[in-house]
């Protein structure tokens, strides 16, 4: 996997009149993972969106080398299409032989996405992310809705991605079982 890097410098985020956090900096190199922790509403999702360039920070800037992939609460899969077709749409765009992590979706490929359960949808979103071939993974609450088995499988997929030299940023209010994980609590960056 080619070189990748993700760095944030002195990021501050404002939503409306309220500053959510400020003075947030970090740098991630290949194989590293960062856990963004903190209670609901502290700005984890906003930070993820800032990192991938969908939201402008009120202050500071983000640098990245390598493509980024995002998995958040928005599925970006057509609910009326069978899962296989919905995922194939992104495969055609990404054209990457990304890691074929096993999320147990083989039996569901004919089922319209709209009929999938919360956990199955989450697994589909993770499969889309894994197949993208992007080197930097940004995951917003990846374990939400997953049972113990698939929660462990999702973390194993993140570990495999890191082992291949990828970067992962995980926003989660749950504890993660990843190796050599850096934890950043947004509570330490309150204004």
């Amino acid at each position: 996997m080619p070189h990748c890097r993700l760095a944030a410098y002195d990021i501050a985020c404002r939503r409306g009149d309220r500053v959510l956090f400020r003075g947030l900096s970090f740098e991630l190199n290949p194989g590293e993972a960062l856990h963004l922790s903190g209670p609901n509403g502290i700005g984890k999702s906003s930070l993820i969106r800032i990192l991938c360039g969908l939201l402008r920070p009120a202050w500071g800037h983000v640098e990245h080398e390598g493509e980024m992939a995002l998995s958040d609460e928005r599925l970006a899969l057509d609910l009326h299409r069978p899962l296989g077709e919905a995922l194939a749409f992104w495969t055609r765009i990404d054209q990457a032989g990304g890691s074929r992590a096993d999320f147990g979706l083989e039996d569901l490929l004919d089922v319209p996405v709209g009929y999938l359960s919360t956990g199955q949808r989450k697994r589909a979103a993770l499969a889309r992310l894994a197949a993208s071939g992007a080197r930097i993974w940004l995951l917003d609450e990846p374990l939400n809705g997953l049972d113990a088995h698939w929660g462990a499988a999702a973390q194993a997929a993140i570990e495999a991605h890191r082992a291949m030299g990828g970067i992962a940023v995980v926003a989660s209010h749950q504890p993660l079982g990843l190796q050599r994980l850096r934890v950043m609590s947004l509570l330490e960056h309150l204004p």
Partner: protein
Amino acid sequence: MSGRRITASLRAIFARDLSTLLRGAMGRGGAVLPLLFFLAVAMLFPFAIGPDAKLLARTGAGVIWVAALLAAILPLDRLVEPDVEAGFFDQWALRGIAEEVLLVVRIVAHWLSFGVPLMLAAPISAGLLSLSREQLIVIEQGLLLGTPGLAAIGVTIAALTAGLRAGSALGGMLAIPLAVPLLIFGAGSLQPGGEGGLVLLAASSVAALAIAPFAGAAAIRAGRE
């Protein structure tokens, strides 16, 4: 992204746009609904004003244009909003595909699923309104030049109102004034001595097409804040 990959991406996105707009998705009607609406107006009009063929022939062309404009409003709420809501535009942005390009693709797909069916249905409408062959030819020319403009205005308004509550009702109100020039020149081209109308119609369409991708893209980006 390499050029080859961009071409493949845009082809996949165009195919998806077109199939979603033609078939409809998740309880939102496809291309058939605006078409039936367009025909319904042409069918109702003679009932309302009576079977006077001369009167129908004189006013029918205007009715067809009003029907086309109103039919253009029907699909507004499913042009952009569902894809913003489902995160498609976010995912495309992450892959470095510009919103402007996406909206050009969407305008083309929307025109194919809305403008072309209207042109195919226009002969039926013309028959219901007892329009002459000559009038029908001018109407078809007008629709060919005007519906791309209507499609562009539709996509722009859909992007502007994506994410707003009651966006679809507001969308109709915003689209109507913007579409008035197309209506005036389109219907005007059928008046005696109105040949210049088609040229002005084309000009209005080109203006709408030129502005739409940029205005719509700015709206989608602003909607993320």
